[in-house]
């Protein structure tokens, strides 16, 4: 637990600055697109065109993101924010929790983008569940007994999901 606390980065001025900057850019994009929508939807008056609400949202986001940026920069100068971004990136790279989370997300992403729709549901689900369970519960040394236990949990979990959803509730599965 203490090892996690030392290496897991907390939300900081660098991250806040980045978030504010991204939202500011987003607001400019939305306002620009709002005008495009008005020009393209063949409605003469802006007040009932498709661009009205996006423009209002864009202006609101612009004001909020500018306030957010100003507040962050008031509390921490720009130089500090930029060096914090650098430190934040270094800590992200070092954090074991982040490594675990990224690998977990990759496994989930592979399941969603590669397995689903391209392989039978039970195969993709069994492989993904096994991968996630083994990865999340990995400990050195990992005995054959533990590996078999997690594979059994995956198999039972997959079977239970198919029986409960497809057979009992008649819910179509991906």
């Amino acid at each position: 637990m203490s090892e996690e606390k030392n290496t897991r980065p907390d939300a900081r001025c660098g991250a806040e600055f980045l978030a504010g900057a991204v939202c500011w850019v987003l607001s400019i994009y939305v306002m620009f697109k709002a005008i495009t929508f008005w020009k393209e939807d063949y409605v003469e008056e802006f007040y009932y065109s498709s661009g009205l609400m996006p423009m209002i949202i864009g202006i609101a986001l612009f004001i909020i993101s500018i306030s957010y940026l100003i507040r962050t920069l008031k509390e921490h100068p720009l130089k500090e924010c930029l060096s914090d971004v650098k430190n934040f990136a270094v800590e992200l790279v070092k954090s074991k929790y982040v490594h675990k989370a990224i690998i977990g997300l990759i496994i989930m992403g592979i399941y969603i983008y590669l397995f689903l729709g391209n392989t039978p549901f039970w195969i993709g689900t069994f492989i993904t569940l096994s991968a996630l369970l083994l990865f999340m519960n990995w400990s050195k040394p990992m005995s054959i007994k533990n590996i078999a236990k997690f594979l059994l949990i995956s198999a039972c979990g997959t079977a239970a999901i198919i029986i409960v959803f497809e057979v009992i509730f008649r819910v179509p599965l991906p």
Partner: protein
Amino acid sequence: MIGTYLSFVGEAFAIALSPQGLLCMVLSTFVGLIFGMLPGLTSTMAVALLTGLTYHFDGSLAILSLLAIYIGAISGGNQSAILLNIPGTPASAATAMDGYPLALKGRAGHAIFCATGASFFGTIISIVCVAFFTPILTVFALKFMSHEMFLLAVFGVVICGNITSNGDPLKGWLSGFIGLLMSQVGMDTIYSYRRFTFGNINLSAGITLLPVMIGLFGFPEVIKAFGAQKAKMQKNTKYSIREGLRDLRRNWLNILRSGILGMIMGAIPGVGEDTGGWISYWSEKKASKHPEEFGKGCIDGVIAAETGNNSAIGGAIIPVLSLAIPGSTSAAVLLAAFWMHGYRPGPLLMNETPEFLYYIVVFMVLSSICMWLLAMLIAKFSVKVLSVDAKTLMPIVFICCVIGSFVTSNRLFDIKIMFVFGLLGIIMSYLHIPGAPFLLGIILGNMADENLRRALLLTHGDVSIFFTRPISIFFMLLIAYMILIQLPFYKRWKENRKAKKKA
């Protein structure tokens, strides 16, 4: 007239007490209790998942199941809060303050009994308010014109951003307006012009609410499991019914006050059950003759917190039924479920489907009774349930999230949406940006867009309508006030005033 209402009540009882209805109610309450008990599984997730799974059910059975799982999930959180000092749902955070110290003293069973009883009474208080206030609010809501519906939507997002962001409303408003932006994706409601679709045919239908909800609220919990540690658990769950009932009777004023406070908190858009629990706990502590005992194992604190968080359930449903604005994230999912099954909550509810209100009231009463009985029955076994490791459970929860996202429209695209918004949810969680305003923005965005443009179309662009009717002036002033009280110069002025008074 009364005969008609009684027949609606009779119909509701017939549905709920039929073999199918009983099975749905008992199973859903049980699953809700399990969801509530297990840290990392929230009531929102439970309702969102079951919404997808009950898509093919008969409408009233689906609504019964959803209400049952909602009540079960909010109530179930108290068991892990008391036994593990980890609230099963955010709504039970206040329960842990006194629940866990009681468990350390060997009184976990007594705490669970009182907490469950308080949950039951809290839900009943809120149900009475649903039955009483919804028709009144519906009549009031019928007076709303298009521009006032727009202002109501903006007010919902602004107040939600204010209250849910832990003193940093800029983040709440940012979340809310990005949610509003997401609602603009797809074909607009008046001219069917495609906005922000980037040529993708799937995005033309807009971003579906359920995958966003599951991604935003489910994903961060699944990812947290990567760093989860097993918590120490108290195992003694024996209790005396007589002693429990005596404590509940002694706290009748506490229950009434917490019930009303929780109901009010639940009715405010985006606030929800966790605030209801905390406000009630704080209020009981203030009113208590022995406030120093709170936090050290005072049963009054447990009762206040659980009454407050459960009464917020009915409170959250009142604006859903009368204004089509959810009071909490779980209520937001319920709203989506009502739409899916052909019910139209809002100002026209009492005209179009008046029986719906009575169905909700009866279903909630029966679900509360079912919850109390089941919770007491499984209290002895909850120890075994709670010992399931999060690292073993969360991968299965992830698969359930995938299925839940898929079932509403049978599109693989929705699962991808869930994943993308899951990543966004992780980033928002890291930056302490609340997800509730985001969700509210997505729900209210189209309503705001359609009503604003309709209002301006009818008046040929004349904005003076916003300043001529009392309802719109009221909402404009309220929104301005909500923003003003968060501005730095106002806060500074208030602090100076306080300092001058002290001096």
